[in-house]
């Protein structure tokens, strides 16, 4: 891997005990350092690390490129993983909607605009981080609370059925790729 980072390395959080660090490069060539415990929260990244056979010695020399995630989202993800790396498994809720309360720190981390949040969800889905996915879905769910369908259309950017049909019609009428 010979990717030359243009931007200086971003040290997101000071790593205390764990000496094993990994480097991740986002789609816009931002480099992030993440600890082993934190990277384990992402199933995709951890599978990649185990498949590549990265060890404590060669981990920093071989940065992992993640093409589908930009620097901004990656920073949020790394912050989240570092924060929750020593968390215990959450208890099973009988009524998730009522019992689960989003922690304040995470609420502040995820208080971003809708477009960024949807992008973050896509990135989380790609990296397969279950906890962050749950939290993001919760934040999106909270946005829909006590809202009318019209308000939801504006918040989520959902087109009406008529607009959908018009788009489909225009797509079918337009000539396909000439070959």
């Amino acid at each position, binding site marked *: 891997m010979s990717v030359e980072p243009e931007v200086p390395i971003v040290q997101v959080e000071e790593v205390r005990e764990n000496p094993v660090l990994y480097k991740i490069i986002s789609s816009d060539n931002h480099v992030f350092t993440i600890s082993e415990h934190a990277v384990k929260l992402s199933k995709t990244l951890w599978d990649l690390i185990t498949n590549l056979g990265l060890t404590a010695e060669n981990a920093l020399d071989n940065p992992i490129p993640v093409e589908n995630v930009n620097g901004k989202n990656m920073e949020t993800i790394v912050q989240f993983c570092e924060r929750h790396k020593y968390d215990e498994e959450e208890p099973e809720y009988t009524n998730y909607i009522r019992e689960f309360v989003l922690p304040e720190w995470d609420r502040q981390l995820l208080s971003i605009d809708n477009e960024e949040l949807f992008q973050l969800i896509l990135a989380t889905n790609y990296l397969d981080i279950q906890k962050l996915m749950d939290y993001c879905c919760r934040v999106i769910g909270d946005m*829909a609370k006590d809202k009318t369908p019209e308000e*939801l259309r504006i918040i*989520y950017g*959902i087109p009406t059925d008529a607009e959908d049909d018009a788009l489909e019609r225009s797509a079918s009428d337009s000539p396909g790729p000439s070959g």
Partner: protein
Amino acid sequence: MTCWNYLPAEIKQHVVKKLDFMSRVSLGSTCRLNRQIVNSTKLELPRVRFGYKKGRSLIVIYTGIEKFLRLEFGNSIFPVNLERNTDYFWKPSTLKCGLGSFCKQCSDPFEYWYYQNLPRRVLHEPFWTDFILNIDQKLIREELRMNYVKDEREKIQKASKKKNLVSSWGFRRDGSINEEGQGKKKRIRKKKKKKIPILENFKDSEDVGEPEVVSYEIFEDSENLEDSEDVEEQKQTSDYMTPRFILTVVLFPILISFIFYLGDTPPATTPDTTDS
């Protein structure tokens, strides 16, 4: 621009799982695709009450204390797949005192509210009260009415002390109605209650405190019709004193008779010009 439509269906389902009942309904109403996604996601309702009698069916979905969605259907049967989750059922091990659900301290708040309001429900929903014996006896009904009136008075007194009213869950809060209109409504309700203390709030059969903002009732209980007739009679008696009534009953016949009188009187005699 990334928006809801760019998310894969699995993530959308994941989000829908985190939504409460009314938000699901709202999201399902936005477009066909979202309706399919909402319908494909398992819905968990902690407390639901079903009733079926003489071709009429009732579904009350409880979403909290004094918060519910009441649906009543006539002559319609619809298939619903139901799954019982035993986690929500009452467990004897949690019982701390002998009062059970009637204990305010140790029972579940919802259970307490539900059982406290059971007599009120019996009074309001005579059609659905087959589960109680001797409910048709007039004495029991009268006793329930008296208790209801007493309780309502206490509630009004309490409500007048509370300034901030919490609107029902799941329904949109309209600021103008809640802040300004609520006060007016209250005043009107109080005035009405002075005149007809028992018959007020009979339509809100499930509600005991502040009435629901929206209730999806398809039709009211037919038994309540007798009561509504009484209300109409009272309204009619109050109509006698209105200016419109005076105008139509008193002034209008006088006016008509005056017109007829003018029409019948012979024209004034004029000197005959032909003779001269």
